[in-house]
């Protein structure tokens, strides 16, 4: 039996701690056992060795060359350089979509070339920009979704944490928001059904699963349905991209968080006529792509996030 099958172990590891945001990515640390082992040095050390760190990057939009950032590939490379400079190597990376701007082979090639320099396993979910080739996502699925279900959803486990990658950018309906669809919802319900309530859950998808701003379509039509399957879990963290800025909400056991883009900023909800790319002075761009430190305090469900710029 591996340590991850040990129910007591999972109980003690339900603390989710996000230590360091790095550039345009976020480094998450999931450390277990802390609340119960503080008084026992041996256990505390053991807990530390079981901790898990991973990175999130999002919205690299490789191929984007408009005034808001004429060199999106360059800023992606800067982000990966930051990743490589981390003192603690993350276990893996998740990319929450919009890898490419126009789903072109060359854009994916260029993105892969840069991202692979991190030498990390990368778990992808698609953004709407990744599925607009003539075959509606064939290129994406062949590159990133071979082991996935449906349009590209899947789950995996790491250090006792259950990760679920969802696709909410397919079959969008007129006037609506992001969409998961019945088939994916059914899969999700079954995927989490037999799991211990003490298992930390990390759900990631491109468009926010909560409604950030209805008027701009920043939400997911059936996101609440998906979250209803996760009510029993003590720790649920939802990581999204799409809106190119940091947003956070905590609701009960669920912490929602959106990551910055590595390519260009978008306006805060309602502060511009449209959510299009936000052109800022050149010396401000990397501040908009900035960084944040995120920490989780034991016995609290709230993740504390401290933003700081990629470039001061």
């Amino acid at each position, binding site marked *: 039996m591996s340590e991850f099958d040990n129910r007591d172990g999972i109980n003690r590891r339900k603390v989710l701690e996000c230590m360091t945001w790095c550039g345009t990515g976020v480094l998450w640390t999931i450390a277990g056992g802390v609340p119960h082992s503080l008084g026992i040095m041996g256990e505390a050390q053991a807990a530390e060795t079981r901790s898990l760190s991973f990175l999130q990057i999002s919205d690299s939009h490789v191929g984007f060359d408009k005034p808001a950032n004429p060199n999106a590939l360059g800023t992606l490379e800067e982000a990966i350089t930051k990743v490589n400079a981390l003192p603690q190597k993350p276990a893996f990376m998740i990319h929450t979509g919009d890898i490419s701007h126009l789903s072109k082979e060359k854009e994916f090639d260029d993105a892969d070339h840069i991202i692979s320099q991190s030498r990390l396993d990368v778990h992808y979910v698609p953004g*709407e920009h990744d599925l607009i080739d003539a075959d509606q996502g064939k290129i994406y699925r062949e590159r990133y979704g071979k082991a996935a279900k449906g349009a590209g959803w899947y789950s995996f486990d790491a250090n006792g944490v259950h990760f679920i990658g969802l696709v909410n950018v397919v079959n*969008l309906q007129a006037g609506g928001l992001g969409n998961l669809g019945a088939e994916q919802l059914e899969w999700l319900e079954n995927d989490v059904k037999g799991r211990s309530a003490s298992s930390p859950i990390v759900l990631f998808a491109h468009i926010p699963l909560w409604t950030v701003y209805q008027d701009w379509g920043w939400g997911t039509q059936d996101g609440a349905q998906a979250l209803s399957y996760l009510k029993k879990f003590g720790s649920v963290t939802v990581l999204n991209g799409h809106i190119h800025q940091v947003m956070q909400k905590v609701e009960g056991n669920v912490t929602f968080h959106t990551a910055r883009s590595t390519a260009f900023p978008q306006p805060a909800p309602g502060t511009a006529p449209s959510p299009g790319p936000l052109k800022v002075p050149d010396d401000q761009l990397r501040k908009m792509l900035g960084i944040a430190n995120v920490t989780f305090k034991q016995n609290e469900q709230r993740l504390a996030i401290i933003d700081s710029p990629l470039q001061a």
Partner: protein
Amino acid sequence: MLRPIIASSVLGAVVGSVLAAGVLFARAEGTPATVTIDNFSFTPATVTVKAGTTVTWTNKDDIPHGVGATNNAFKKSPALDTDDSYTFTFTTPGTYQYFCYLHPKMVGTIVVEQ
């Protein structure tokens, strides 16, 4: 002094007739209509045309958009990058609702009359 004026009047009349003929021809087939995609919206949001009219959508945003009909009532566009256009000729009268299949909050309507 008069000659150039007369000449230009004649020319003007000729041009006028050609234009008038063009307009008559276009009306019979439906005057081409354009929809501009800008700031994540279709402008004008509703376009009324005669059957046989070709509608052209042009994307002026820095972000790609797509034109997709509700219930697939007409052929959807490929993704339109900045300055890309899509045309579709509406031959059957009816009310066609459409949206951007990448940003579905963006909606528009084409009304096709006999």
